[in-house]
């Protein structure tokens, strides 16, 4: 019992971090919003509520994005944890516990993590915002006004995070229902998930959403050549198709992983890594989808705004009086927005690190077997790094591709009818963003592999011979 509860604590460390990060982000943003509203309305205290509401709506978008990505990461983490707990759950079922009791107990863990994480994150976020404000006041960067201590709105992100964590633990624990008591006995090999679950309905739904959304997107772009309404259609198409992509990621991602795997070379480590990533499409999809979402959002935003800027630069009659100043402000605003969206990528990166660690933890016996049969510890290290690289490259690459398409479609549909119509905008990729993404991907590959590599190379080959 004792060992089981410690296993649980380490199981949930990453969900706790992800939850706390989302909560800290949300609370800090709400506080910053109310500080800003105070500054803006310093001369006119009466309009505070209105300004605050407007700013809150903007920051709310970023909080929702962060919580959404956090929820997906948490749901996937729970699904991975449950895959590793199959044996224990089966044993409980064997003794007489019902599947729904088991699932409820996991959802309760999710609720506890949500509460603990949002409390921790809330405190941290509040402190960060407060310290940042005081530092700015001392440095004379902002006026010393009577800023509100705490904003009532900050309960909103906290509630959101608690609910999202709880809900995602519920969604992620779906698999509990398919665990049979018989799995507690004997040496039943784990059937990989794609064989136990065929989901024609979900797959069809995802395909319709994805391709339908893309059609809508194309329609929006075409309409954008004549009418400003094109942007709204394209925006809708983007949301629909991306939802389809996320829903059907277990179908879309494996071919990408396989393609990237082929580029990894033919060494035994790389080949085993490719096998691992593609034979468990569900697991690798779970590991990568957060990164895909984060990178897609950042890229979409960056490409769209870059397109917008270059369009402004290119049309003389719309030139503002003092272009340098305007562009400088625009760049600052874009930088801040990118950083706010980028936060979701950080959350996603945590999710990937954790999923990779868990998957190594769950493969202890298999790795011991490989060591016994003649895989050197260097080869094992190579294999884990290759798995990590494969997933990172596939996720970042996919995110970039989607982001460029969405970003371009956004800019094109918005600007297509400028100067009396029929303007074609080239998809412009901001190079600093690309460089940052490549550097981030490289750092993530090695960062994500560190813990699992240490674990995997310390596995003794004798382990494979032990009987569990």
């Amino acid at each position, binding site marked *: 019992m004792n060992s089981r509860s410690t296993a649980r604590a380490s199981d949930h460390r990453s969900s706790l971090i992800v939850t706390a990060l989302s909560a800290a982000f949300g609370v800090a943003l709400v506080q910053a919003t109310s500080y800003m509203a105070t500054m803006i309305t310093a001369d006119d205290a009466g309009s505070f509520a209105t300004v605050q509401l407007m700013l809150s709506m903007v920051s709310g978008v970023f909080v929702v994005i962060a919580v959404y990505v956090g929820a997906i990461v948490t749901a996937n983490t729970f699904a991975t944890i449950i895959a590793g707990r199959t044996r224990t759950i089966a044993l409980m079922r064997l003794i007489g516990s019902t599947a729904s009791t088991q699932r409820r107990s996991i959802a309760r863990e999710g609720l506890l993590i949500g509460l603990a994480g949002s409390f921790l994150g809330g405190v941290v976020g509040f402190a960060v915002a407060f310290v940042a404000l005081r530092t700015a006041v001392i440095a004379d960067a902002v006026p010393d006004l009577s800023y509100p201590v705490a904003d009532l709105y900050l309960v909103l992100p906290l509630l959101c995070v608690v609910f999202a964590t709880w809900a995602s633990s519920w969604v992620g624990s779906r698999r509990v229902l398919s665990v049979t008591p018989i799995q507690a006995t004997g*040496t039943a090999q784990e059937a990989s998930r794609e064989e136990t679950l065929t989901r024609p309905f979900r797959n069809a739904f995802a395909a319709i959403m994805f391709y339908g959304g893309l059609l809508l997107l194309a329609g929006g772009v075409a309409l954008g050549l004549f009418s400003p309404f094109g942007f709204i259609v394209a925006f809708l198409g983007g949301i629909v198709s991306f939802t389809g992509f996320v829903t059907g990621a277990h179908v879309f991602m494996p071919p990408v992983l396989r393609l990237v795997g082929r580029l990894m070379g033919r060494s035994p480590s790389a*080949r085993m890594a490719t096998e691992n990533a593609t034979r468990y499409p569900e697991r690798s999809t779970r590991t990568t989808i957060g990164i895909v979402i984060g990178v897609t959002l950042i890229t979409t935003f960056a490409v769209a705004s870059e397109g917008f800027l270059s369009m402004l630069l290119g049309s003389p009659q719309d030139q503002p009086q003092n272009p340098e100043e305007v562009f400088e402000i625009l760049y600052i605003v874009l930088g801040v927005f990118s950083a706010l969206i980028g936060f979701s990528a950080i959350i996603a990166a945590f999710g990937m690190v954790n999923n990779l660690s868990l998957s190594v933890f769950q493969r202890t016996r*298999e790795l011991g077997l490989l060591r016994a049969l003649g895989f050197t510890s260097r080869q094992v290290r190579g294999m884990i790094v290759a798995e990590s690289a494969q997933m990172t490259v596939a996720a970042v690459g996919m995110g970039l591709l989607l982001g460029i398409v969405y970003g371009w479609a956004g800019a094109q549909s918005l600007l297509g009818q400028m100067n009396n119509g029929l303007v074609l905008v080239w998809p412009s990729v901001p190079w600093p963003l690309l460089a940052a993404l490549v550097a981030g991907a490289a750092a993530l590959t090695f960062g994500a592999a560190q813990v699992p590599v240490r674990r995997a190379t310390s596995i003794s080959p004798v382990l494979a011979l032990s009987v569990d």
Partner: protein
Amino acid sequence: MSFNHAEAGLVARVSHLTKSYGTGTSLVTALDDVSIGIRQGEFTAIMGPSGSGKSTLMHIMAGLDSPTTGRAWLGNTEITNLGDTELTVLRRRRIGFVFQSFNLVPTLDIRGNIHLPFELDGRTPSTTEKAWIADLVQSLGLGDRLAHRPHQLSGGQQQRVAIARALAARPDLVFADEPTGNLDSRTGREVLSLLAAASKDYGQSIAMVTHDPIAASYADRILFLADGRVVEERERSSAEDISRYMLGMEQNA
């Protein structure tokens, strides 16, 4: 050492092997001055009750564990002073394993599992090796199972895949650790016959660790271990004789 194991007909040998864990009052001696040889081309059983040190002995002989004192050879290679990487490559190329719990890689299909030793070595089997594997697959009755995954197979079939994997690269020596421990008695007998046949027909050297007298009765030669020492050595014996000897050993203890 100028002793030539191959000429002496030995595929593996250990000399004055001692293995102990812990220190002081908690000192446990798993192996106590063990010296044995495994003969080339024979099916050898290493027998003993639980805790007799037979698994430790096998781990050391297979390069999975290192002794406290003493030396071990595989062929003419002394393995006791090899580094981890050299040991790993030696296991990969010269040793095969059959485990009690089968230990197939669940993500690989049967073909992938059988080819694993080559995969780990970073090469594809040569034409002769391919023919040999096809032969093995045929004689083990796995021909129509190659595209299946391990979990779709029965225990006996999984163990046959493990045997095919162990024999595929024609290692110097195959270690089998209680290969029938997870099988019903009929399937267990089939697996034992297959191991015995591999030794008889192909000259494969096999060392099997077991505490089951019936399993040991399939072997050409039986080494008995008790409390970390070799206490008896016999040529092929019936299960009844082995049982009687084991019982006597228990009563004298």
